[in-house]
């Protein structure tokens, strides 16, 4: 039994050069990362990025074509799922409809031969943990979507697994419930201090719940970093584009001065992203977040900024807490920039077709080569 051996490694999970190929598709390529015990990791990526395949390999539902999955210091390549100490919350929850909520939570204890006398107390404790203390006798179809989520969490945690895996269980919920459950996951994870790996395509969820984020695309790990670093220092254009609302300004490099990269377009410059060191004349793209751009009726309204361009408003979208402007900038070759205006006082003051001034700081433009 793997779970009985106490390995003195600080890592709950280590993934070593893992590759997964099936039906001619290279779903996961050379994935390598370590996850410290007690941390909450989110694997974030678009559909088809390999994130779920990676999670399923950690759970034991698929053997890597090559490479090792190490859990608590032990390579688990040939260990079947039911012999791993892993709790998993599935995308469609997979609660057993022929059992009550309490029976669902008791199921892993019965399967794992816990002392029968301790089972009822333990089940009640975990139902209390997920705030379903009084609903144990309900059948699954008698519970609401959010309550079913809670049963699934309790069932995955009740046997105190070394690792909790979440396979996009929140994807089907409406936004309000999803945000509530994200905070619940966070609370329960902190309360039990259980190492957790969450898979999602929801960038907001990744930022809200995680200690660390792995961004995946096309089977490759693009970046592993803390949420703030993932957002502020994306390692490449894909990460910059996938998280947040990002504008890309295409151009060629005029000169490089330390971290500072000047574009051949007059007035446009940025700082290097991820150590990108181009030579003059190389193609490059500057990534600029929509919230980093200030918008005003004239240049004097922008305040103290390094870079200023004029543009024409082509669309104005009211999103409640903010207005998103789409502005065409002629001096940037007609590049369309999306700009947030969060100020309720100035909301919607720029009509479609009106001329506006856009301003930002050079340090907010991250320059990438790809």
């Amino acid at each position: 039994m793997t779970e009985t051996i106490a390995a003195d490694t600080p890592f709950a999970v280590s993934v070593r050069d893992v590759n997964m190929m099936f039906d001619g598709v290279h779903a996961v390529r050379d994935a390598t990362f370590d996850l410290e015990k007690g941390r909450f990791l989110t694997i974030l990526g678009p559909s088809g990025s390999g994130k779920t395949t990676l999670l399923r390999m950690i759970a034991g539902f698929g053997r890597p074509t090559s490479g090792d999955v190490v859990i608590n210091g032990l390579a688990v390549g040939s260990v079947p799922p039911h012999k791993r100490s892993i709790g998993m919350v599935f995308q469609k929850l997979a609660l057993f409809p022929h059992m009550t909520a309490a029976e669902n939570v008791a199921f892993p204890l019965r399967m794992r031969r816990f002392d029968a006398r301790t089972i009822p107390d333990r089940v009640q404790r975990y139902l209390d943990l997920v705030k379903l203390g009084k609903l144990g006798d309900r059948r699954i179809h008698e519970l609401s979507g959010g309550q079913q989520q809670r049963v699934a969490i309790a069932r995955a945690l009740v046997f105190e697994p070394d690792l909790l895996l979440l396979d996009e269980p929140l994807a089907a919920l409406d936004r309000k419930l999803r945000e509530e459950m994200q905070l619940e996951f966070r609370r329960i994870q902190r309360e039990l201090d259980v190492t957790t790996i969450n898979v999602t395509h929801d960038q907001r969820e990744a930022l809200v719940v995680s200690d660390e984020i792995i961004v995946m695309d096309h089977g490759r790990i693009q970046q592993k970093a803390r949420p703030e670093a993932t957002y502020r220092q994306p390692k490449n254009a894909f990460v910059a584009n996938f998280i947040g609302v990002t504008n890309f300004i295409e151009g060629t490099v005029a000169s490089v001065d330390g971290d500072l990269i000047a574009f051949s377009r007059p007035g446009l410059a940025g700082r290097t992203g991820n150590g990108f060191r181009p030579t003059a004349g190389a193609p490059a793209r500057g990534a600029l977040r929509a919230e980093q751009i200030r918008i005003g009726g004239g240049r004097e309204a922008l305040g103290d900024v390094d870079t200023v361009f004029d543009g024409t408003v082509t669309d104005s979208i009211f999103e409640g807490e903010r207005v998103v402007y789409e502005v065409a900038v002629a001096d940037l070759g007609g590049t369309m920039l999306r700009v947030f205006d969060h100020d309720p006082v100035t909301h919607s003051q720029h009509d479609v077709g009106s001329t506006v001034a856009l301003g930002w700081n050079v340090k907010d433009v991250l320059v990438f080569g790809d």
Partner: protein
Amino acid sequence: MRPSRTAYPLSWRLMDALEATAVAVWPRSFAAAVPWLMLLPAVLLVGLLVLGLWDMADGSLRTLDTATFLPSDDYSLRNYDRAFTEKLFFTVASRSLIGSLIVTVITLILAFPYSYVMVRTRSAALRKVLLIALFLPFFIGQVVRAYGWLIILGSQGMVNEALGLVGVAPVRLLYNYPAVLFGLVQYMLPFAVLMLAPALTAIPEEMESAAGSLGANWVKTFLHVVLPMAKPGFIGAGLVVLTLSLTDFAMPAILGGGSQDFIANAIYDQFFRTSDQGMGATLALLLVAVGSMMVGVVFALFGAGTLAMGRAK
């Protein structure tokens, strides 16, 4: 403006023409009656059956006059008395009942892995092969299939010939109870698989993965998750197999060779050999009663399974 051919294909225009004809023949104001009208043929058919039963009930109360070979004019319960007391009828009835129960159990056991593989396999080719193998017997009638078994299992059949090659004396494989049950299982298997497959399809594969991650090996997963969740399919399949084999005629007749009669064979004999229509009607009615009771008991104990249909709760 005429819509272009691609935007408005021929099949749509055909549908338009059909709809227009339908409206001309059956004005829209009659629309509420349509569902009932469509039910009518089925109701009429069942109604005819009930009429037939009524006629048989009448016949079952008349005894055969051995002098004239005509049913008596007066009513009596003589036929029912005979059915419950004569040893022959008891033997036939218990043979049919026990046989159909055995056939049901064996068929369900064999049908489960077949449907499971058919539903779960990732290979589209294997699924096709399994489906074709399933439907092939339907194209061959039950009687032809029974004769096929005669050719294979007969005293000069293929099996005995093969045994002869290794020096084993011919074995009597036909005209006994196991032969009839064997033929029935073979006949019922496709029905059971077809009834079980939708129930298994309805179990998400994620359920089995979940059971695995929660600590259940495949045996426990089967016992605690797949089996309970497939229960409606087992009930539906079990009822179909039970009633079909309880009332079967061809297999006992051909593979039993007259020595292994089921109730249907006894009824046939009464009607067409001894010409005792009253006795035949009595046995037929008793068969209907016993079959209905068994179905009723299953419904009461386990619910109607997939046969309950209706909207999901």
